[in-house]
Protein backbone atom coordinates (compact mmCIF):
# COMPACT_ATOMS: atom_id res chain seq x y z
CA UNK A 1 0.00 0.00 0.00
CA UNK A 2 1.43 3.36 -0.95
CA UNK A 3 1.73 6.17 1.56
CA UNK A 4 -1.08 8.18 -0.01
CA UNK A 5 -3.40 5.21 0.00
CA UNK A 6 -2.68 4.55 3.65
CA UNK A 7 -3.56 8.13 4.50
CA UNK A 8 -6.74 8.33 2.44
CA UNK A 9 -9.32 5.92 3.77
CA UNK A 10 -11.37 4.15 1.07
CA UNK A 11 -14.76 5.48 -0.02
CA UNK A 12 -16.31 2.06 0.52
CA UNK A 13 -14.93 -0.63 2.72
CA UNK A 14 -13.26 -3.50 0.93
CA UNK A 15 -15.44 -6.55 0.99
CA UNK A 16 -18.72 -4.66 0.67
CA UNK A 17 -20.75 -6.67 -1.82
CA UNK A 18 -23.60 -5.74 -4.10
CA UNK A 19 -25.95 -8.25 -2.51
CA UNK A 20 -24.93 -7.22 0.97
CA UNK A 21 -25.54 -3.54 0.38
CA UNK A 22 -28.83 -4.17 -1.42
CA UNK A 23 -30.10 -6.28 1.45
CA UNK A 24 -28.87 -3.90 4.13
CA UNK A 25 -30.35 -0.73 2.66
CA UNK A 26 -33.64 -2.17 1.46
CA UNK A 27 -34.29 -4.13 4.64
CA UNK A 28 -34.08 -0.92 6.61
CA UNK A 29 -37.22 0.11 4.77
CA UNK A 30 -38.92 -3.22 4.21
CA UNK A 31 -38.10 -5.41 7.20
CA UNK A 32 -36.52 -3.65 10.14
CA UNK A 33 -38.93 -3.73 13.10
CA UNK A 34 -39.65 -0.49 14.92
CA UNK A 35 -37.36 -0.21 17.88
CA UNK A 36 -38.49 1.35 21.14
CA UNK A 37 -35.87 4.07 20.92
CA UNK A 38 -37.31 5.08 17.55
CA UNK A 39 -40.74 5.48 19.11
CA UNK A 40 -39.31 7.58 21.93
CA UNK A 41 -37.39 9.77 19.49
CA UNK A 42 -40.48 10.18 17.34
CA UNK A 43 -42.46 11.18 20.42
CA UNK A 44 -39.94 13.87 21.27
CA UNK A 45 -39.81 15.38 17.80
CA UNK A 46 -43.60 15.26 17.55
CA UNK A 47 -43.81 17.23 20.79
CA UNK A 48 -41.53 19.86 19.30
CA UNK A 49 -43.63 19.86 16.13
CA UNK A 50 -46.69 20.43 18.29
CA UNK A 51 -44.89 23.39 19.85
CA UNK A 52 -44.41 24.74 16.34
CA UNK A 53 -48.08 24.26 15.47
CA UNK A 54 -49.14 25.89 18.72
CA UNK A 55 -46.85 28.88 18.12
CA UNK A 56 -48.05 29.27 14.56
CA UNK A 57 -51.73 29.11 15.49
CA UNK A 58 -51.20 31.68 18.24
CA UNK A 59 -49.24 33.84 15.79
CA UNK A 60 -52.06 33.71 13.25
CA UNK A 61 -54.62 34.48 15.91
CA UNK A 62 -52.77 37.27 17.64
CA UNK A 63 -50.49 38.70 14.92
CA UNK A 64 -46.73 39.17 14.62
CA UNK A 65 -46.75 41.12 17.88
CA UNK A 66 -46.32 37.81 19.72
CA UNK A 67 -42.73 37.89 18.47
CA UNK A 68 -40.12 40.31 19.67
CA UNK A 69 -40.07 42.24 16.40
CA UNK A 70 -40.38 45.98 16.91
CA UNK A 71 -39.13 49.16 15.33
CA UNK A 72 -36.19 49.52 14.76
CA UNK A 73 -35.62 45.73 14.60
CA UNK A 74 -38.53 44.65 12.40
CA UNK A 75 -36.70 41.58 11.07
CA UNK A 76 -36.24 39.28 14.01
CA UNK A 77 -35.81 35.56 14.47
CA UNK A 78 -38.03 34.78 11.50
CA UNK A 79 -35.48 36.11 9.04
CA UNK A 80 -32.51 34.76 11.02
CA UNK A 81 -34.10 31.32 10.95
CA UNK A 82 -35.06 31.60 7.29
CA UNK A 83 -31.52 32.39 6.20
CA UNK A 84 -30.04 29.74 8.47
CA UNK A 85 -32.37 26.95 7.38
CA UNK A 86 -32.04 27.66 3.72
CA UNK A 87 -28.28 27.69 4.13
CA UNK A 88 -28.45 24.24 5.73
CA UNK A 89 -30.17 22.98 2.62
CA UNK A 90 -27.41 24.18 0.35
CA UNK A 91 -24.88 21.53 1.28
CA UNK A 92 -27.31 18.84 0.17
CA UNK A 93 -27.52 20.30 -3.31
CA UNK A 94 -23.81 20.97 -3.30
CA UNK A 95 -23.10 17.32 -2.58
CA UNK A 96 -25.56 16.02 -5.14
CA UNK A 97 -25.01 18.49 -7.94
CA UNK A 98 -21.52 19.99 -7.73
CA UNK A 99 -19.83 16.78 -6.71
CA UNK A 100 -21.77 14.86 -9.36
CA UNK A 101 -20.46 17.23 -12.01
CA UNK A 102 -16.94 16.97 -10.63
CA UNK A 103 -17.24 13.17 -10.61
CA UNK A 104 -16.40 12.87 -6.94
CA UNK A 105 -17.36 9.27 -6.31
CA UNK A 106 -17.41 9.66 -2.52
CA UNK A 107 -20.65 11.62 -2.76
CA UNK A 108 -22.54 8.45 -3.67
CA UNK A 109 -23.30 7.09 -0.25
CA UNK A 110 -24.27 10.39 1.34
CA UNK A 111 -26.10 12.19 -1.45
CA UNK A 112 -29.54 10.69 -0.81
CA UNK A 113 -29.93 11.80 2.75
CA UNK A 114 -28.13 15.07 2.05
CA UNK A 115 -30.81 15.78 -0.57
CA UNK A 116 -33.55 14.81 1.87
CA UNK A 117 -31.95 17.20 4.33
CA UNK A 118 -32.15 19.91 1.66
CA UNK A 119 -35.85 19.34 1.07
CA UNK A 120 -36.79 19.41 4.73
CA UNK A 121 -34.54 22.38 5.49
CA UNK A 122 -36.05 24.36 2.60
CA UNK A 123 -39.53 23.45 3.86
CA UNK A 124 -38.60 24.81 7.30
CA UNK A 125 -37.02 27.89 5.74
CA UNK A 126 -39.98 28.58 3.47
CA UNK A 127 -42.30 28.77 6.45
CA UNK A 128 -40.64 31.80 8.02
CA UNK A 129 -41.14 34.54 5.44
CA UNK A 130 -44.79 33.48 5.21
CA UNK A 131 -45.24 33.51 8.99
CA UNK A 132 -43.55 36.87 9.06
CA UNK A 133 -46.17 38.40 6.73
CA UNK A 134 -48.57 40.70 8.47
CA UNK A 135 -51.44 39.00 6.68
CA UNK A 136 -50.21 35.45 6.01
CA UNK A 137 -53.55 34.34 4.57
CA UNK A 138 -52.92 36.41 1.45
CA UNK A 139 -49.46 34.90 0.88
CA UNK A 140 -50.48 34.01 -2.68
CA UNK A 141 -50.26 37.69 -3.59
CA UNK A 142 -46.55 36.99 -3.86
CA UNK A 143 -47.15 34.99 -7.02
CA UNK A 144 -48.02 36.56 -10.35
CA UNK A 145 -51.52 35.47 -11.26
CA UNK A 146 -54.40 37.18 -13.03
CA UNK A 147 -56.38 38.91 -10.31
CA UNK A 148 -59.32 41.25 -10.00
CA UNK A 149 -57.05 43.95 -8.53
CA UNK A 150 -55.12 43.91 -11.83
CA UNK A 151 -51.90 44.16 -9.83
CA UNK A 152 -48.59 42.36 -10.21
CA UNK A 153 -45.81 41.59 -7.77
CA UNK A 154 -42.99 44.13 -7.67
CA UNK A 155 -40.56 42.25 -9.88
CA UNK A 156 -37.71 44.67 -9.18
CA UNK A 157 -37.60 43.75 -5.52
CA UNK A 158 -35.16 41.12 -4.23
CA UNK A 159 -37.92 39.91 -1.92
CA UNK A 160 -39.95 38.83 -4.94
CA UNK A 161 -36.82 37.31 -6.50
CA UNK A 162 -36.60 35.30 -3.31
CA UNK A 163 -40.09 33.89 -3.82
CA UNK A 164 -39.07 32.63 -7.24
CA UNK A 165 -35.64 31.46 -6.13
CA UNK A 166 -36.84 29.50 -3.11
CA UNK A 167 -39.85 27.91 -4.79
CA UNK A 168 -37.78 26.93 -7.85
CA UNK A 169 -35.13 25.57 -5.52
CA UNK A 170 -37.65 23.42 -3.69
CA UNK A 171 -39.19 22.06 -6.89
CA UNK A 172 -35.84 21.28 -8.54
CA UNK A 173 -34.52 19.66 -5.34
CA UNK A 174 -37.64 17.51 -5.17
CA UNK A 175 -37.30 16.43 -8.81
CA UNK A 176 -33.60 15.70 -8.40
CA UNK A 177 -34.23 13.67 -5.29
CA UNK A 178 -37.12 11.71 -6.78
CA UNK A 179 -35.32 10.95 -10.03
CA UNK A 180 -32.44 9.61 -7.95
CA UNK A 181 -34.76 7.25 -6.07
CA UNK A 182 -36.57 5.69 -9.05
CA UNK A 183 -34.21 2.68 -9.56
CA UNK A 184 -34.18 2.07 -5.81
CA UNK A 185 -37.97 1.92 -5.68
CA UNK A 186 -37.70 -0.80 -8.33
CA UNK A 187 -35.34 -2.74 -6.08
CA UNK A 188 -37.74 -2.38 -3.16
CA UNK A 189 -40.65 -3.44 -5.39
CA UNK A 190 -38.75 -6.56 -6.39
CA UNK A 191 -37.83 -7.37 -2.81
CA UNK A 192 -41.22 -6.56 -1.27
CA UNK A 193 -42.59 -9.36 0.87
CA UNK A 194 -46.23 -8.39 0.75
CA UNK A 195 -48.77 -6.98 -1.68
CA UNK A 196 -49.08 -3.55 -0.08
CA UNK A 197 -45.35 -2.82 -0.07
CA UNK A 198 -45.07 -4.19 -3.59
CA UNK A 199 -47.86 -1.91 -4.77
CA UNK A 200 -46.58 1.29 -3.16
CA UNK A 201 -42.98 0.76 -4.24
CA UNK A 202 -44.17 -0.34 -7.67
CA UNK A 203 -46.13 2.86 -8.17
CA UNK A 204 -43.16 4.96 -7.07
CA UNK A 205 -40.81 2.99 -9.34
CA UNK A 206 -43.01 3.91 -12.34
CA UNK A 207 -42.31 0.54 -13.94
CA UNK A 208 -38.54 0.92 -13.93
CA UNK A 209 -36.89 -2.23 -15.31
CA UNK A 210 -33.28 -1.22 -15.75
CA UNK A 211 -33.17 -1.26 -19.55
CA UNK A 212 -29.90 0.08 -20.92
CA UNK A 213 -31.65 2.75 -23.00
CA UNK A 214 -33.59 3.83 -19.95
CA UNK A 215 -30.38 4.04 -17.96
CA UNK A 216 -28.78 6.13 -20.67
CA UNK A 217 -31.61 8.67 -20.75
CA UNK A 218 -31.85 8.55 -16.99
CA UNK A 219 -28.19 9.37 -16.56
CA UNK A 220 -28.34 12.14 -19.11
CA UNK A 221 -31.33 13.67 -17.38
CA UNK A 222 -29.72 13.27 -13.96
CA UNK A 223 -26.51 14.91 -15.09
CA UNK A 224 -28.43 17.79 -16.66
CA UNK A 225 -30.43 18.25 -13.48
CA UNK A 226 -27.13 18.37 -11.62
CA UNK A 227 -25.89 20.98 -14.07
CA UNK A 228 -29.04 23.03 -13.49
CA UNK A 229 -29.03 22.65 -9.72
CA UNK A 230 -25.41 23.77 -9.31
CA UNK A 231 -25.91 27.37 -10.51
CA UNK A 232 -29.37 27.38 -8.92
CA UNK A 233 -27.99 26.77 -5.46
CA UNK A 234 -25.59 29.66 -5.90
CA UNK A 235 -28.36 31.92 -7.17
CA UNK A 236 -30.66 31.10 -4.24
CA UNK A 237 -28.37 32.25 -1.47
CA UNK A 238 -27.09 35.12 -3.61
CA UNK A 239 -30.66 36.35 -3.85
CA UNK A 240 -31.03 35.91 -0.10
CA UNK A 241 -27.88 38.02 0.26
CA UNK A 242 -29.37 40.65 -2.04
CA UNK A 243 -32.46 40.87 0.18
CA UNK A 244 -30.11 42.55 2.60
CA UNK A 245 -27.62 44.31 0.39
CA UNK A 246 -30.31 46.12 -1.62
CA UNK A 247 -31.18 48.04 1.56
CA UNK A 248 -29.04 51.00 2.65
CA UNK A 249 -28.67 49.89 6.26
CA UNK A 250 -25.02 49.91 7.39
CA UNK A 251 -23.89 46.30 7.70
CA UNK A 252 -26.24 45.20 4.91
CA UNK A 253 -25.35 47.48 2.03
CA UNK A 254 -22.30 45.64 0.78
CA UNK A 255 -21.40 43.82 -2.40
CA UNK A 256 -19.67 40.96 -0.61
CA UNK A 257 -22.98 39.59 0.63
CA UNK A 258 -23.96 37.20 -2.20
CA UNK A 259 -20.69 35.17 -2.34
CA UNK A 260 -20.21 35.35 1.41
CA UNK A 261 -23.76 34.09 1.97
CA UNK A 262 -23.24 31.18 -0.40
CA UNK A 263 -20.01 30.14 1.36
CA UNK A 264 -21.66 30.48 4.76
CA UNK A 265 -24.58 28.37 3.58
CA UNK A 266 -22.37 25.53 2.41
CA UNK A 267 -20.30 25.84 5.58
CA UNK A 268 -23.30 25.34 7.85
CA UNK A 269 -24.81 22.77 5.50
CA UNK A 270 -21.79 20.49 5.70
CA UNK A 271 -21.93 20.82 9.44
CA UNK A 272 -25.54 19.62 9.30
CA UNK A 273 -24.57 16.71 7.03
CA UNK A 274 -22.12 15.60 9.71
CA UNK A 275 -24.61 16.17 12.52
CA UNK A 276 -27.01 13.82 10.75
CA UNK A 277 -24.56 11.34 9.23
CA UNK A 278 -22.56 10.55 12.34
CA UNK A 279 -25.50 9.30 14.46
CA UNK A 280 -27.14 7.59 11.45
CA UNK A 281 -24.01 5.66 10.65
CA UNK A 282 -23.68 4.55 14.25
CA UNK A 283 -27.34 3.60 14.72
CA UNK A 284 -27.84 1.80 11.41
CA UNK A 285 -24.36 0.32 11.13
CA UNK A 286 -23.48 2.09 7.89
CA UNK A 287 -19.74 2.12 8.54
CA UNK A 288 -19.11 0.25 5.29
CA UNK A 289 -20.53 2.94 3.05
CA UNK A 290 -20.28 6.10 5.13
CA UNK A 291 -16.60 5.89 5.90
CA UNK A 292 -14.00 8.05 7.60
CA UNK A 293 -13.25 9.35 4.11
CA UNK A 294 -16.65 11.04 3.98
CA UNK A 295 -16.22 12.63 7.37
CA UNK A 296 -12.71 13.72 6.46
CA UNK A 297 -13.88 15.28 3.19
CA UNK A 298 -16.77 17.09 4.86
CA UNK A 299 -14.23 18.44 7.32
CA UNK A 300 -12.04 19.74 4.49
CA UNK A 301 -15.01 21.42 2.83
CA UNK A 302 -16.01 22.98 6.15
CA UNK A 303 -12.49 24.31 6.50
CA UNK A 304 -12.38 25.90 3.07
CA UNK A 305 -15.86 27.42 3.25
CA UNK A 306 -15.11 28.54 6.81
CA UNK A 307 -12.06 30.38 5.54
CA UNK A 308 -14.17 32.12 2.89
CA UNK A 309 -16.58 33.17 5.64
CA UNK A 310 -13.65 34.45 7.70
CA UNK A 311 -12.52 36.44 4.67
CA UNK A 312 -16.06 37.87 4.50
CA UNK A 313 -15.81 39.09 8.10
CA UNK A 314 -12.40 40.57 7.44
CA UNK A 315 -13.58 42.31 4.27
CA UNK A 316 -16.57 43.78 6.09
CA UNK A 317 -14.36 45.18 8.83
CA UNK A 318 -11.83 46.46 6.36
CA UNK A 319 -14.41 48.16 4.17
CA UNK A 320 -16.03 49.73 7.23
CA UNK A 321 -12.73 51.41 7.99
CA UNK A 322 -11.46 52.01 4.45
CA UNK A 323 -14.80 53.22 3.09
CA UNK A 324 -14.67 56.20 5.43
CA UNK A 325 -18.38 56.14 6.25
CA UNK A 326 -18.99 57.05 9.89
CA UNK A 327 -22.02 54.80 10.01
CA UNK A 328 -20.25 51.75 8.62
CA UNK A 329 -17.31 52.15 10.94
CA UNK A 330 -19.65 52.66 13.89
CA UNK A 331 -21.53 49.50 12.90
CA UNK A 332 -18.29 47.48 13.03
CA UNK A 333 -17.36 48.96 16.37
CA UNK A 334 -20.87 48.41 17.71
CA UNK A 335 -20.84 44.74 16.70
CA UNK A 336 -17.57 44.04 18.46
CA UNK A 337 -18.18 46.09 21.61
CA UNK A 338 -21.85 47.16 21.66
CA UNK A 339 -24.70 45.56 23.60
CA UNK A 340 -24.63 42.47 21.34
CA UNK A 341 -20.90 41.89 21.61
CA UNK A 342 -21.50 38.34 22.86
CA UNK A 343 -22.98 37.41 19.48
CA UNK A 344 -20.10 38.85 17.50
CA UNK A 345 -17.46 37.14 19.60
CA UNK A 346 -19.43 33.88 19.40
CA UNK A 347 -19.21 33.91 15.63
CA UNK A 348 -15.52 34.78 15.71
CA UNK A 349 -14.92 31.79 17.96
CA UNK A 350 -17.28 29.31 16.26
CA UNK A 351 -16.70 30.23 12.61
CA UNK A 352 -13.14 31.53 12.52
CA UNK A 353 -11.12 30.15 15.44
CA UNK A 354 -12.62 26.69 16.06
CA UNK A 355 -12.60 25.49 12.41
CA UNK A 356 -8.83 25.99 12.25
CA UNK A 357 -8.58 22.67 14.09
CA UNK A 358 -9.76 21.09 10.84
CA UNK A 359 -6.33 21.63 9.35
CA UNK A 360 -5.27 18.53 11.29
CA UNK A 361 -6.04 15.08 9.99
CA UNK A 362 -6.28 13.71 13.53
CA UNK A 363 -9.20 16.08 14.13
CA UNK A 364 -10.93 15.43 10.82
CA UNK A 365 -10.77 11.66 11.25
CA UNK A 366 -11.95 11.62 14.84
CA UNK A 367 -15.68 10.98 14.72
CA UNK A 368 -16.81 12.39 18.11
CA UNK A 369 -14.70 15.52 17.62
CA UNK A 370 -16.22 16.07 14.20
CA UNK A 371 -19.71 15.74 15.63
CA UNK A 372 -18.86 18.32 18.28
CA UNK A 373 -17.31 20.57 15.63
CA UNK A 374 -20.43 20.36 13.47
CA UNK A 375 -22.57 21.57 16.37
CA UNK A 376 -20.20 24.47 17.04
CA UNK A 377 -20.33 25.53 13.40
CA UNK A 378 -24.12 25.43 13.34
CA UNK A 379 -24.38 27.55 16.46
CA UNK A 380 -21.84 29.90 14.93
CA UNK A 381 -23.69 30.21 11.64
CA UNK A 382 -27.04 30.77 13.30
CA UNK A 383 -25.45 33.50 15.42
CA UNK A 384 -23.88 35.02 12.32
CA UNK A 385 -27.32 35.57 10.84
CA UNK A 386 -28.43 36.98 14.18
CA UNK A 387 -25.54 39.45 14.00
CA UNK A 388 -26.35 40.41 10.43
CA UNK A 389 -30.06 40.94 11.01
CA UNK A 390 -30.21 42.34 14.50
CA UNK A 391 -27.01 44.26 15.17
CA UNK A 392 -27.30 46.04 11.84
CA UNK A 393 -30.85 47.19 12.50
CA UNK A 394 -30.83 48.04 16.16
CA UNK A 395 -28.48 51.02 15.81
CA UNK A 396 -28.56 52.57 12.39
CA UNK A 397 -28.21 56.25 11.55
CA UNK A 398 -29.88 58.31 14.27
CA UNK A 399 -29.23 57.57 17.93
CA UNK A 400 -32.76 58.74 18.71
CA UNK A 401 -34.07 55.80 16.67
CA UNK A 402 -31.94 53.17 18.34
CA UNK A 403 -33.50 50.28 20.17
CA UNK A 404 -32.95 46.76 21.44
CA UNK A 405 -34.38 43.49 20.27
CA UNK A 406 -35.60 40.93 22.75
CA UNK A 407 -36.89 37.61 21.45
CA UNK A 408 -40.04 36.34 23.16
CA UNK A 409 -40.90 32.80 24.14
CA UNK A 410 -42.75 32.43 20.83
CA UNK A 411 -39.62 33.30 18.88
CA UNK A 412 -37.83 30.48 20.65
CA UNK A 413 -40.69 27.99 20.44
CA UNK A 414 -40.99 28.58 16.69
CA UNK A 415 -37.27 28.02 16.20
CA UNK A 416 -37.25 24.87 18.36
CA UNK A 417 -40.45 23.74 16.68
CA UNK A 418 -38.80 23.78 13.28
CA UNK A 419 -36.03 21.56 14.67
CA UNK A 420 -38.77 19.14 15.65
CA UNK A 421 -40.47 19.36 12.27
CA UNK A 422 -37.17 18.89 10.44
CA UNK A 423 -36.24 15.84 12.51
CA UNK A 424 -39.77 14.44 12.20
CA UNK A 425 -39.48 14.55 8.41
CA UNK A 426 -36.01 13.10 8.62
CA UNK A 427 -37.03 10.21 10.89
CA UNK A 428 -39.88 9.36 8.54
CA UNK A 429 -37.48 9.52 5.60
CA UNK A 430 -35.07 7.12 7.31
CA UNK A 431 -37.85 4.55 7.70
CA UNK A 432 -39.70 5.01 4.43
CA UNK A 433 -37.09 5.76 1.77
CA UNK A 434 -33.83 3.92 1.03
CA UNK A 435 -31.41 6.34 2.64
CA UNK A 436 -28.48 5.45 0.43
CA UNK A 437 -28.64 5.24 -3.34
CA UNK A 438 -28.34 1.52 -3.96
CA UNK A 439 -27.94 1.75 -7.71
CA UNK A 440 -25.08 4.22 -7.41
CA UNK A 441 -23.32 2.20 -4.72
CA UNK A 442 -23.59 -0.88 -6.97
CA UNK A 443 -22.01 1.05 -9.79
CA UNK A 444 -19.28 2.24 -7.45
CA UNK A 445 -18.57 -1.28 -6.22
CA UNK A 446 -18.32 -2.51 -9.80
CA UNK A 447 -15.98 0.28 -10.78
CA UNK A 448 -13.69 -0.13 -7.78
CA UNK A 449 -13.87 -3.92 -7.72
CA UNK A 450 -13.23 -4.70 -11.35
CA UNK A 451 -11.05 -7.75 -11.59
CA UNK A 452 -11.58 -8.69 -7.96
CA UNK A 453 -14.86 -10.47 -8.67
CA UNK A 454 -14.73 -14.17 -9.27
CA UNK A 455 -15.91 -14.82 -12.80
CA UNK A 456 -17.68 -17.90 -11.42
CA UNK A 457 -20.94 -15.96 -11.31
CA UNK A 458 -21.17 -16.08 -15.06
CA UNK A 459 -19.79 -19.55 -15.77
CA UNK A 460 -21.92 -21.64 -18.11
CA UNK A 461 -22.29 -24.57 -15.72
CA UNK A 462 -25.44 -22.93 -14.37
CA UNK A 463 -27.02 -22.72 -17.80
CA UNK A 464 -30.18 -24.72 -18.29
Amino acid at each position, binding site marked *: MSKVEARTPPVIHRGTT*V*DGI*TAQISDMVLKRPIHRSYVVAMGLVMMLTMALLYSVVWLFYEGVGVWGVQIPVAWGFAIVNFVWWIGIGHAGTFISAMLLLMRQDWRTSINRFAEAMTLFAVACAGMFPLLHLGRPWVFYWLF*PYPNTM*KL*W*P*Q*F*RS*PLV*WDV*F*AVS*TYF*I*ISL*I*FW*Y*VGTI*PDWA*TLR*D*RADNKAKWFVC*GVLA*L*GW*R*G*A*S*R*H*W*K*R*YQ*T*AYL*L*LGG*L*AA*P*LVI*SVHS*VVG*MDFSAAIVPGWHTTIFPPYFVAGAIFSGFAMVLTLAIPLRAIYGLHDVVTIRHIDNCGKLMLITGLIVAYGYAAEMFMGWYGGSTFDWFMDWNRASGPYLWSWWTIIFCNVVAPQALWFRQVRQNVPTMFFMSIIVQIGMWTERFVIVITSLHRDFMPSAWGMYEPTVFDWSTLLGTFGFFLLCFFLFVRLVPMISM*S*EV*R*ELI*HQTDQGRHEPAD*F*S*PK*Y*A*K
Partner: protein
Amino acid sequence: MEAAKKVHEAGYRRAEGYSPHAVTGLSEALGFEKTGVPLIVFIGGIVGGLGGYFMMWYANVISYPWNIGGKPPNSWPAFIPITFEMTVLGAGLMALLGMLVLNGLPCPYHPLFRAPTFEQASQNQYFICIEVADPLFDLDRTRDFLMSLSPLAVVEVPW
Protein backbone atom coordinates in the same frame (compact mmCIF):
# COMPACT_ATOMS: atom_id res chain seq x y z
CA MET B 1 -21.04 -5.98 -21.87
CA GLU B 2 -19.22 -8.47 -24.10
CA ALA B 3 -22.45 -10.33 -24.67
CA ALA B 4 -24.24 -7.12 -25.62
CA LYS B 5 -21.58 -6.33 -28.19
CA LYS B 6 -21.91 -9.81 -29.70
CA VAL B 7 -25.68 -9.47 -29.83
CA HIS B 8 -25.34 -6.25 -31.74
CA GLU B 9 -22.65 -7.66 -34.01
CA ALA B 10 -24.85 -10.66 -34.75
CA GLY B 11 -27.27 -8.14 -36.22
CA TYR B 12 -30.01 -8.06 -33.61
CA ARG B 13 -31.55 -4.61 -33.44
CA ARG B 14 -34.57 -5.12 -31.19
CA ALA B 15 -32.42 -6.26 -28.29
CA GLU B 16 -32.14 -4.72 -24.86
CA GLY B 17 -29.88 -5.20 -21.87
CA TYR B 18 -31.15 -4.94 -18.30
CA SER B 19 -28.94 -4.16 -15.37
CA PRO B 20 -29.31 -3.20 -11.69
CA HIS B 21 -27.10 -0.14 -12.14
CA ALA B 22 -26.02 2.07 -14.99
CA VAL B 23 -23.38 0.32 -17.08
CA THR B 24 -21.25 2.77 -19.02
CA GLY B 25 -21.32 1.96 -22.71
CA LEU B 26 -23.96 -0.75 -22.55
CA SER B 27 -26.60 1.13 -24.52
CA GLU B 28 -23.96 2.21 -27.06
CA ALA B 29 -22.95 -1.44 -27.46
CA LEU B 30 -26.56 -2.18 -28.36
CA GLY B 31 -26.58 0.60 -30.93
CA PHE B 32 -28.28 3.39 -28.98
CA GLU B 33 -26.46 6.69 -29.20
CA LYS B 34 -28.70 9.74 -29.03
CA THR B 35 -31.02 10.11 -26.06
CA GLY B 36 -32.93 13.21 -27.15
CA VAL B 37 -33.07 14.39 -23.55
CA PRO B 38 -30.62 17.33 -23.88
CA LEU B 39 -32.64 18.93 -26.68
CA ILE B 40 -35.85 18.74 -24.66
CA VAL B 41 -34.13 20.24 -21.63
CA PHE B 42 -32.70 23.03 -23.78
CA ILE B 43 -36.11 23.84 -25.20
CA GLY B 44 -37.60 23.75 -21.69
CA GLY B 45 -34.99 26.21 -20.50
CA ILE B 46 -35.50 28.59 -23.41
CA VAL B 47 -39.27 28.54 -23.04
CA GLY B 48 -39.02 29.00 -19.27
CA GLY B 49 -36.58 31.89 -19.55
CA LEU B 50 -38.38 33.72 -22.34
CA GLY B 51 -41.72 33.09 -20.64
CA GLY B 52 -40.43 34.46 -17.34
CA TYR B 53 -39.02 37.58 -18.96
CA PHE B 54 -42.15 38.07 -21.04
CA MET B 55 -44.29 37.87 -17.90
CA MET B 56 -42.33 40.65 -16.20
CA TRP B 57 -42.15 42.74 -19.35
CA TYR B 58 -45.90 42.40 -19.89
CA ALA B 59 -46.68 43.21 -16.24
CA ASN B 60 -44.47 46.28 -16.08
CA VAL B 61 -44.70 47.71 -19.61
CA ILE B 62 -48.17 46.78 -20.90
CA SER B 63 -50.45 45.77 -18.07
CA TYR B 64 -49.54 48.12 -15.23
CA PRO B 65 -46.62 50.50 -15.87
CA TRP B 66 -45.54 51.83 -12.52
CA ASN B 67 -42.64 54.13 -11.69
CA ILE B 68 -40.55 52.51 -8.96
CA GLY B 69 -37.46 54.42 -7.92
CA GLY B 70 -37.32 56.14 -11.31
CA LYS B 71 -36.45 52.91 -13.10
CA PRO B 72 -37.67 52.49 -16.67
CA PRO B 73 -40.68 50.18 -17.13
CA ASN B 74 -38.54 47.59 -18.86
CA SER B 75 -35.74 47.57 -16.28
CA TRP B 76 -34.04 44.45 -17.56
CA PRO B 77 -31.17 44.13 -15.03
CA ALA B 78 -33.72 43.73 -12.24
CA PHE B 79 -35.53 41.08 -14.26
CA ILE B 80 -32.48 38.81 -14.66
CA PRO B 81 -32.78 36.83 -11.41
CA ILE B 82 -36.36 35.76 -12.04
CA THR B 83 -35.58 35.03 -15.70
CA PHE B 84 -32.76 32.78 -14.52
CA GLU B 85 -34.94 30.99 -11.99
CA MET B 86 -37.65 30.41 -14.59
CA THR B 87 -35.06 29.06 -17.04
CA VAL B 88 -33.87 26.54 -14.47
CA LEU B 89 -37.43 25.63 -13.55
CA GLY B 90 -38.48 25.06 -17.17
CA ALA B 91 -35.37 23.05 -17.95
CA GLY B 92 -35.62 20.98 -14.78
CA LEU B 93 -39.27 20.10 -15.30
CA MET B 94 -38.53 19.12 -18.89
CA ALA B 95 -35.58 16.97 -17.77
CA LEU B 96 -37.96 14.96 -15.61
CA LEU B 97 -40.82 14.79 -18.09
CA GLY B 98 -38.58 14.26 -21.12
CA MET B 99 -36.75 11.38 -19.47
CA LEU B 100 -39.97 9.70 -18.38
CA VAL B 101 -41.88 10.16 -21.63
CA LEU B 102 -39.03 9.04 -23.88
CA ASN B 103 -38.54 6.00 -21.69
CA GLY B 104 -42.23 5.16 -21.89
CA LEU B 105 -42.62 5.49 -18.14
CA PRO B 106 -44.72 5.15 -16.08
CA CYS B 107 -45.22 1.65 -17.38
CA PRO B 108 -47.25 -0.35 -14.87
CA TYR B 109 -46.96 -3.64 -16.72
CA HIS B 110 -44.32 -5.15 -18.94
CA PRO B 111 -44.14 -8.80 -20.10
CA LEU B 112 -40.59 -9.04 -18.73
CA PHE B 113 -41.91 -8.66 -15.19
CA ARG B 114 -43.26 -12.21 -15.58
CA ALA B 115 -39.89 -13.63 -16.62
CA PRO B 116 -38.37 -15.91 -13.98
CA THR B 117 -35.79 -14.23 -11.71
CA PHE B 118 -36.32 -10.92 -13.50
CA GLU B 119 -36.74 -9.33 -10.07
CA GLN B 120 -32.95 -9.74 -9.85
CA ALA B 121 -32.59 -7.17 -12.65
CA SER B 122 -32.98 -4.51 -10.01
CA GLN B 123 -30.59 -6.24 -7.63
CA ASN B 124 -27.60 -8.19 -8.87
CA GLN B 125 -28.14 -9.86 -12.24
CA TYR B 126 -27.89 -8.86 -15.85
CA PHE B 127 -30.33 -9.73 -18.61
CA ILE B 128 -30.44 -9.48 -22.37
CA CYS B 129 -33.77 -9.65 -24.12
CA ILE B 130 -34.18 -10.12 -27.87
CA GLU B 131 -37.67 -9.30 -29.01
CA VAL B 132 -39.73 -11.35 -31.42
CA ALA B 133 -40.14 -8.19 -33.48
CA ASP B 134 -36.47 -8.35 -34.42
CA PRO B 135 -36.13 -9.17 -38.13
CA LEU B 136 -33.46 -11.80 -37.37
CA PHE B 137 -35.52 -13.49 -34.69
CA ASP B 138 -35.92 -17.23 -35.00
CA LEU B 139 -36.80 -19.12 -31.85
CA ASP B 140 -34.26 -21.95 -32.19
CA ARG B 141 -31.42 -20.04 -33.74
CA THR B 142 -31.77 -17.12 -31.33
CA ARG B 143 -31.81 -19.50 -28.39
CA ASP B 144 -28.68 -21.25 -29.62
CA PHE B 145 -27.03 -17.91 -30.19
CA LEU B 146 -27.86 -16.77 -26.67
CA MET B 147 -26.62 -20.08 -25.25
CA SER B 148 -23.31 -19.49 -27.03
CA LEU B 149 -22.86 -16.38 -24.90
CA SER B 150 -22.67 -18.66 -21.82
CA PRO B 151 -25.46 -17.13 -19.75
CA LEU B 152 -26.94 -18.38 -16.48
CA ALA B 153 -30.15 -19.26 -18.26
CA VAL B 154 -32.16 -18.60 -21.41
CA VAL B 155 -35.92 -18.37 -21.18
CA GLU B 156 -38.80 -17.49 -23.47
CA VAL B 157 -40.96 -14.69 -22.20
CA PRO B 158 -44.58 -14.89 -23.37
CA TRP B 159 -45.79 -11.55 -24.72
